[in-house]
C-alpha cells in the first residue's frame, strides 16, 4: 500500500487533491486469493457509495424545520436527518446564521463563495448545511412567528434552540404548536438544558458543555506530566448531543407511526450527551468518591492501549487481551530483545488486571518506547499489523485526506457542488445495503430557497414576498 | 423477459381472474344518503374498487333515479337509469324524519369510514345528522357533501341543481356545439358523473390522510366547480387575452387536424397533432405535397385558423367516400388517430371492450344476465369489479341492521311497523321483478 506522499509546496497553495489517485479495485483485491476476495467484494456490492443513488432513503418522507441558529448542536442533528433523507428546511434570521461568518482566525480568504450571488460563507457552517434548504425568517417579529405557526402544520419535526421558554412565551412553543399539529415532534437543543438551576446561564456554543460535563477536566496530560485540562479541538459535545437529538427524533417518529399518532417534546443537550458517554466516571465516583484524573494518551482501564511518541510522530498501539499482549512484545523483542525479556520475566504483568496500575503502565510504555523511538509510524504499523495487532499513527489532516483506504471508500471525497464548486468533505458514515445516507448538495446561500419553500408550503405570492421583505421578516 | 408484452399484459389483467384478486378498498365502509347521479356515483366508484357501500333511502319510494328510465320504460320493474350508479350496494330503507330513524342512521355513521350526501346545503345539518353532529359520533368520519353550488357562497342556499344546471352555469354548454345554432345538452349526465369521480377522488385523498393521522374531515364538492376545472384552456386564455370562448363545432382548436368526419357509413374522429402523425395522414391521403405545404408543415402553422379551415376541408373531402373501418385501418397503418364515433350497439358488440371488461357482463341473482359499462381503470393487483346490480328499496334491511347494528328480527319488525324502517312501494322502479314477487307470494 502506498504511503501518503509528504505534502509538497509548503503549507499554502492549493494542493492537487488527491495527491495520488485512489487505489483501483485491482490494486486492492488483485493480489488476494479468490476466497479472501469474496466477502469484501460482497460487501462492496451491497454498500459501496457509488450505488447510493439507486437506493431509497430512510427518512425520505420526513420534513424537518431546523430553527436553531448560532449553535452547531441543532445543525448537526438536522445534518444527520438530512443525510438520512429528510427534507430539512434550515430557518435563518434575515442576514443569515451568525455561524456563517465563522472562519479560522477570521481569515476571509478561507471562506467560499457561491457562484450565483458570490456570498461568502465559512467552511464550518457550510459543512453542516448539507442537503438542507435555506430560508430566512425573522422570529423576533410577530409576522415571522405567524408564518412559523403556519409552517408548523406542514412539518414533522421542529428543532429550535432559543433561550429556555422563549418560544413558549412567544406562543410558538411545544405547548401551542402541538395544538396546531398534534403529530409534531418538537426538539429543543442547547448546552445545559431549558429547566433546572443552570437553565438561565448564558453560553450557547461548545466548549461550554465540554467544561460543564467533566470532559475537559479529564482530557489532556495529567498534571504530573506537565499537562492541563484540555478541550477537544472540535465542538465535540455538540456532535454528541446533536446525534442524541437525532436519535430521539427518529425514535419519536417511530412511536408516532407505530403507536400514538402523536408527536412529542424532546430535549437534548450537549452536556448531557457527554455525560451519558463518559463511561465509568459516575459509577466510580459513586463507589468511593473517586474523581477521574486526566491520563493523557494512556488509558486508565486498558494496558496496552495508548498513543505514545515514536520516531516521526505519535503511534497508537492497542492490545487489550493476552493474545495481543504477547504478540506486541514479540514484535518489540525482534528489535529490542531486552525490552521483551524484561516484560516476560516480570511476574507482576502476567494477569490482565494487574497490568492496569499506573506504575505498571509507566513500565510498559517506557519499554514500548524503547522500540517505538526507532520506528516510524508506518514501520511500526507494518510490523504490528503483521501480528494482527491494532495499531496506527496519529494522522494529520492532510494524511487523513490522502489516506488510500479513505479515498477508496470515499470517506473523504471531493463533492462538486452546483453553487460552491468542488469542496472536500467528510462524507456521512451511514453506509447501508438499502438506505444509505448521502450528500446531495453542500449548502445554500442565505434565503436561497425562500421562494421554493414558502410558495410550496404556504402559497405565498410575489406580493407576500415583497411585503415580507419590506418588513424585514425575510 | 422472453414473453411478449401483450401476452404478459393479457395474463396480468386477465378478466377471468379478477375475482381471484383482492380489492383495493376492502374494509372501507361507505354510507350514502343520496339521490340521482352525483351522490350515488361517488359512492359507486368507491364500491367498484372494494368498499362496502350502504345506501340509505327514504322508504317506500327511494331514490328519484328509480323513476328516470328512457322513454319511461321499466325493465323487470327496474329503472334502467338506476343501474349504472348503484352496483354492489346494500340497500336500506330508513325514514330519517323519525327520531328513531335518525338514531339508527347515526349508529350506522359511527361505524362507517366515509359518508356521502347530496342534499341541498345545510339540509342534513337542519335534520341534525350533518357533519357537526356525525363528527361527534365518529371523529374519523370522512364526510363528502356533494352539491351543485357548494355548501356556502351566494348560490349555495336554496338553489336546486342538476347535472345540466352545472353544464349550463359552468360555461360548458357555451363552448359545445356549433356556432349560430341553439345550445345542446351533453348526451350524458356528464357533470354528475365527473363530479362523482372528483368527489370520490377527494374521499380517497382524505382516507390516505386519515391513515397517517387518524383524523376524518369534511369535503365540500360542487359539481359545477368540477366542470369549471375541466374546461382546459378556457380560463387562462380569458385571463391573458380577454377573449371569450364560444362553440367551435367538432374541430379541436388546439390540435390540428382533429375533427369528426362524415364518411360512407357513419362518423369517425380523426386526429394528427404531432408533425410525424400529420405526415402519416398525408401519406394515407396519398398526397406528399400536403406535408410540405408551408401552411401545414408544423403544428404551429396548422393552428392558424385559416390554415386549419383549409386543411380540414381537404380532409373531409378525402374521407367522405371511405368507410369507418377503412379509415381506422389507415390510421393504424400510418400512425395517426382515427376511431369511429361509437353508438351503444357498436360498444355492446365490441370484442375488444368485452375482453377488457369495459363492457361488463355478469349474472345478477335477481335480474339475470346484465351487461353494463365496466370499471374504467384496470388495476393489475386489485381490479375493480361489479358484483351485483342495484336492488329494490330496503332489500338489505335485515342484513345491514342485524350485521352492523345488531338489531334482532323482532326489533326490525317493530321498527317496520312504526314505519321507521321500510321497504319498496308497490310501483315499478321501487319494487322487485314480478317474477320474484310471484315466487315469494306463493311461499
Amino acid at each position, binding site marked *: 500500500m502506498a504511503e501518503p506522499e509528504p505534502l509538497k509546496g509548503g503549507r499554502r497553495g492549493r494542493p492537487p487533491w488527491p495527491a495520488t489517485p485512489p487505489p483501483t479495485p485491482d490494486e486492492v483485491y488483485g493480489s488476494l486469493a479468490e476466497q479472501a476476495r469474496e466477502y469484501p467484494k460482497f460487501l462492496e456490492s451491497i454498500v459501496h457509495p457509488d450505488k447510493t443513488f*439507486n437506493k431509497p432513503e430512510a427518512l425520505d418522507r420526513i420534513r424537518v424545520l431546523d430553527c436553531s441558529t448560532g449553535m452547531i448542536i441543532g445543525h448537526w442533528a438536522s445534518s444527520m436527518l438530512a443525510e438520512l433523507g429528510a427534507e430539512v428546511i434550515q430557518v435563518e434570521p434575515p442576514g443569515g446564521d451568525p455561524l456563517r461568518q465563522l472562519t479560522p482566525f477570521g481569515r476571509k480568504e478561507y471562506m467560499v463563495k457561491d457562484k450565483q450571488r458570490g456570498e461568502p460563507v465559512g467552511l464550518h457552517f457550510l459543512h453542516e448545511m448539507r442537503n438542507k434548504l435555506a430560508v430566512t425568517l425573522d422570529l423576533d417579529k410577530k409576522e415571522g412567528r405567524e408564518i412559523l405557526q403556519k409552517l408548523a402544520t*406542514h412539518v414533522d419535526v421542529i428543532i429550535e434552540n432559543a433561550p429556555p421558554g422563549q418560544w413558549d412565551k412567544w406562543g410558538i412553543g411545544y405547548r401551542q404548536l402541538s395544538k396546531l399539529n398534534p403529530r409534531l415532534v418538537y426538539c429543543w437543543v442547547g448546552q445545559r438544558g431549558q429547566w433546572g438551576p443552570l437553565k438561565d446561564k448564558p453560553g450557547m456554543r461548545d466548549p461550554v458543555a465540554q467544561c460543564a460535563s467533566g470532559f475537559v477536566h479529564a482530557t489532556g496530560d495529567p498534571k504530573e506530566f506537565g499537562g492541563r485540562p484540555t478541550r477537544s479541538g472540535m465542538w465535540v459535545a455538540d456532535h454528541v448531543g446533536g446525534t442524541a437529538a437525532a436519535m430521539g427524533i427518529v425514535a419519536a417518529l417511530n412511536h408516532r407511526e407505530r403507536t400514538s399518532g402523536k408527536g412529542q417534546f424532546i430535549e437534548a443537550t450537549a452536556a448531557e450527551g457527554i455525560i451519558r458517554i463518559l463511561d465509568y466516571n459516575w459509577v466510580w465516583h459513586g463507589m468511593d468518591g473517586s474523581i477521574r484524573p486526566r491520563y493523557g494518551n494512556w488509558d486508565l482501564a486498558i494496558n496496552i492501549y495508548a498513543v505514545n511518541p515514536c520516531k516521526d510522530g505519535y503511534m497508537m498501539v492497542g492490545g487489550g487481551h493476552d493474545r495481543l499482549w504477547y504478540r506486541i512484545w514479540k514484535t518489540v523483542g525482534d528489535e529490542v530483545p531486552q525490552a521483551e525479556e524484561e516484560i516476560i520475566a516480570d511476574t507482576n504483568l502476567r494477569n490482565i488486571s494487574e497490568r492496569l496500575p499506573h506504575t505498571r503502565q509507566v513500565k510498559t510504555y517506557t519499554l514500548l518506547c524503547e522500540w517505538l523511538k526507532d520506528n516510524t509510524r508506518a514501520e511500526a504499523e507494518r510490523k504490528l499489523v503483521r501480528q494482527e495487532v491494532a495499531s496506527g499513527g496519529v494522522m494529520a489532516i492532510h494524511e487523513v485526506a490522502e489516506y488510500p483506504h479513505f479515498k477508496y471508500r470515499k470517506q473523504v471525497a471531493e463533492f*462538486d457542488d452546483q453553487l460552491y464548486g468542488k469542496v472536500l468533505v467528510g462524507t456521512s458514515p451511514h453506509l447501508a445495503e438499502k438506505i444509505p445516507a*448521502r450528500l446531495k448538495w453542500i449548502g445554500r446561500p442565505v434565503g436561497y430557497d425562500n421562494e421554493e419553500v414558502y410558495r410550496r408550503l404556504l402559497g405565498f405570492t410575489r406580493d407576500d414576498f415583497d411585503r415580507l421583505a419590506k418588513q424585514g421578516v425575510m | 423477459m422472453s414473453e411478449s408484452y401483450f401476452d404478459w*399484459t393479457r395474463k396480468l389483467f386477465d378478466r377471468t381472474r379478477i375475482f381471484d384478486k383482492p380489492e383495493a378498498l376492502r374494509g*372501507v365502509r361507505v354510507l350514502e344518503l343520496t339521490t340521482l347521479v352525483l351522490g350515488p356515483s361517488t359512492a359507486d366508484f368507491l364500491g367498484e374498487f372494494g368498499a362496502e357501500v350502504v345506501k340509505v333511502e327514504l322508504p317506500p319510494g327511494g331514490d328519484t333515479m328509480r323513476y*328516470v*328510465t*328512457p322513454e319511461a320504460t321499466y325493465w323487470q320493474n327496474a329503472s334502467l*337509469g338506476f*343501474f349504472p350508479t348503484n352496483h354492489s350496494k346494500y340497500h336500506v330503507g330508513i325514514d330519517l324524519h323519525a327520531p328513531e330513524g335518525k338514531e339508527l342512521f347515526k349508529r350506522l355513521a359511527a361505524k362507517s369510514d366515509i359518508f356521502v350526501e347530496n342534499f341541498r346545503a345545510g339540509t342534513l345539518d337542519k335534520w341534525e345528522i350533518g357533519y357537526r353532529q356525525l363528527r361527534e359520533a365518529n371523529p374519523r368520519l370522512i364526510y363528502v357533501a356533494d352539491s351543485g353550488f357548494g*355548501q356556502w357562497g*351566494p*348560490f349555495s342556499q*336554496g338553489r*336546486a341543481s*342538476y347535472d*345540466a344546471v352545472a353544464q349550463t352555469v359552468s360555461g360548458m*354548454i*357555451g363552448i*359545445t356545439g*356549433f356556432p349560430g345554432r341553439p345550445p345542446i345538452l351533453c*348526451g*350524458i*349526465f*356528464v357533470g354528475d358523473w*365527473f363530479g362523482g369521480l*372528483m368527489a370520490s*377522488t377527494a374521499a*380517497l385523498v*382524505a382516507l390516505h390522510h386519515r*391513515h397517517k393521522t387518524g383524523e376524518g*374531515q369534511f369535503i365540500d364538492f*360542487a359539481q359545477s*366547480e368540477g366542470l369549471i376545472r375541466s374546461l*382546459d384552456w*378556457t*380560463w387562462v386564455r380569458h385571463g*391573458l*387575452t380577454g377573449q371569450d*370562448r*364560444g362553440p367551435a*363545432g*367538432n374541430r379541436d382548436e388546439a*390540435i390540428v387536424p382533429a375533427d*369528426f368526419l362524415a364518411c360512407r357509413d357513419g362518423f369517425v*374522429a*380523426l386526429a394528427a*397533432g404531432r408533425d410525424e402523425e400529420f405526415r402519416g395522414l398525408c401519406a394515407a391521403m396519398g398526397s406528399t405535397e400536403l406535408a410540405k405545404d408551408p401552411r401545414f408543415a408544423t403544428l*404551429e402553422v396548422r*393552428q*392558424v385558423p385559416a390554415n386549419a379551415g383549409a386543411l380540414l376541408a381537404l380532409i373531409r373531402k378525402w374521407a367522405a367516400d371511405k368507410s369507418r373501418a377503412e379509415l381506422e385501418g389507415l390510421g*393504424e397503418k400510418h400512425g395517426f*388517430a382515427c*376511431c369511429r364515433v361509437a*353508438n351503444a350497439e357498436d360498444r355492446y358488440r365490441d370484442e375488444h371492450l368485452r375482453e377488457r371488461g*369495459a363492457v361488463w357482463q355478469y349474472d345478477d341473482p335477481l335480474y339475470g344476465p346484465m351487461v353494463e359499462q365496466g370499471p*374504467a381503470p384496470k*388495476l393489475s393487483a*386489485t381490479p375493480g369489479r361489479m358484483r351485483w346490480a342495484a336492488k329494490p328499496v330496503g332489500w338489505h334491511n335485515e342484513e345491514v341492521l342485524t350485521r352492523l347494528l345488531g338489531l334482532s328480527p323482532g326489533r326490525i319488525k317493530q321498527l317496520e311497523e312504526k314505519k321507521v324502517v321500510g321497504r319498496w312501494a308497490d310501483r315499478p322502479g321501487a319494487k322487485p321483478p314480478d317474477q320474484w314477487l310471484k315466487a315469494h307470494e306463493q311461499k
Partner: protein
Amino acid sequence: MTDQPHSWPRYAKEITDPALAHEKPEALDDLRVLDASSGNFAALFASSILAEFGAEVIRLEPPGGDVARLFSPQGVKHRGTGLAYLVEARNKRHITLNLDKPAGRELFARLARHVDVVIESAKPGQMDAWGIGYRRLSAGNPRLIYLAFSTYGQFGPKAASPIPDYDITNQALSGTPYTTGEPAGEGGPESSVPTKQGNWMAWYVGGGWGAFAVLAALIWREASGQGQFIDCSPAEAEMRFTDYDIHWYHANKRIRERLGALNVSVFPYTLIKTKDSYSFIAGFSDINWTGLTNIVGRPDLKERYPTTKARIGESKLLHRELEGWAAGLTSQEVLDRVQDYVANKRGPGTVASARLNRPSDTLGETHWWERGVFERIGDPDYGELLLQAPPWKMSRTPPRIKWACRPVGADNEMVYLKYLGLGRERLQALKAEGVI
C-alpha cells in the same frame, strides 16, 4: 342566514375556506410522482390532481419540451408555452430526459426507484420494449404504482394498435358524442351530427380516473406493501359515464340517439329560449312538474300530462309551450321566478333553473370568486395567470396551487442532484450528449 353565527354556511365556510388552504397540511405530501407522459392531457390532469393534493410531481419532458406545450388554440403562446399546458403544469417540477437514448432510459430507471408513481402515455409496449416498463421497474421497486394511458389500453385485441391517444378519438369511442347534438334534420348537415364536448372532456375524465386509480392503489399499498400496474383508457373512462346506453340496448335492443336540448328519460329537463338568451329548466318528477306548471301559470298542463311517460311523449309540444312562456322573460327573470317559488315555498315541488353562461358570464359571477374557484396566480416564471383552482373544499387537507408552470428543464439540477447525485459536471456532459 349566511352570516348568523351558528348557521351552517358560515360554519362550512370557516372549516373549508380555500383562502386558508396554505395553512393546512397536505394529504399527499409523502407521495412522489414521475409524470413521463407526452402530449397527453389525461396524464397531465392525473398528475395535476396528485400535485394539487401535495404530491411532489416530477414532470419529465424530452429536451426542448413536450409537444403538450404546443397544444394551444390558434397557436397562441405565453412566454413560449401553450395555454393548455399552463393550466396543467401546476405544482410540478420540470426536468428533461431523452428516452430515445439508452443513457436516458438508464437514468429513467434510476429515477423510478425513488418515486411512488410513474405515469406515462406512450404507445402500449413502447416503454416495455425500452426496458423501462412496469415489468422492469417493479423489479427494482416493488412498491411502484405505474399508470399508463392509451386509447385502447394495454391488453385486448386492439391494444397493439399503434394509434396515438387524443381526446377527440377517445370521446368518439366513449359513445358520448353519438348521443350529443341536434337530431338529423333539425339543423343543417354541418351541425346535425354527433357532437363532441367543446373541452377535452375525455382527457379530463381519463385523468380523473387515473388519479382515482392511483389513490386506490396507494391505499392498497398501505395494506400490502405492493404497488401495481394501472391501465387506463380515457375512452373507457368516459364510457363509464354513458348512463344507461348499454343497459337500454341490452334490455330492449334500443340505440340511444341525439335529442338536442331534450332528454330521453324525463321532461322537462331542457334548455329553453328566453328573451335574451337561453335557460335551463327542470321539473320532471310529478311533484316538481306541479311546481313548474304553477310557476308558468298553466295548471292545465299538469292535468293533461300527469305522468313522465305522457310528458316525454309530447316533449316537443311541451317544450314549445315553455318557450312561449319564456319568450317575454329574460333568463334572469326566469330564474328569479323559479327561485321566488322555491325559496319562499309558494307551492309544492322544487324547480331548477339556470341561465346559459358563456365562459365570460361564468367569470362574471361573484359566487365563483367568493368560493375561490378561480385564482389569479403570480407565477414566478409566467407572471399573472387566471387559473381554475382545484374544485374541492376540504376541512383538513385542502388542495392548493403553489405555482403554475416551470420552464423546460427548470428543475434538472435539483432533481437529478437530489435523487441521482448527478453533479454539475455530469449534468453538463449529459446535456452535451443530448440525454437531458
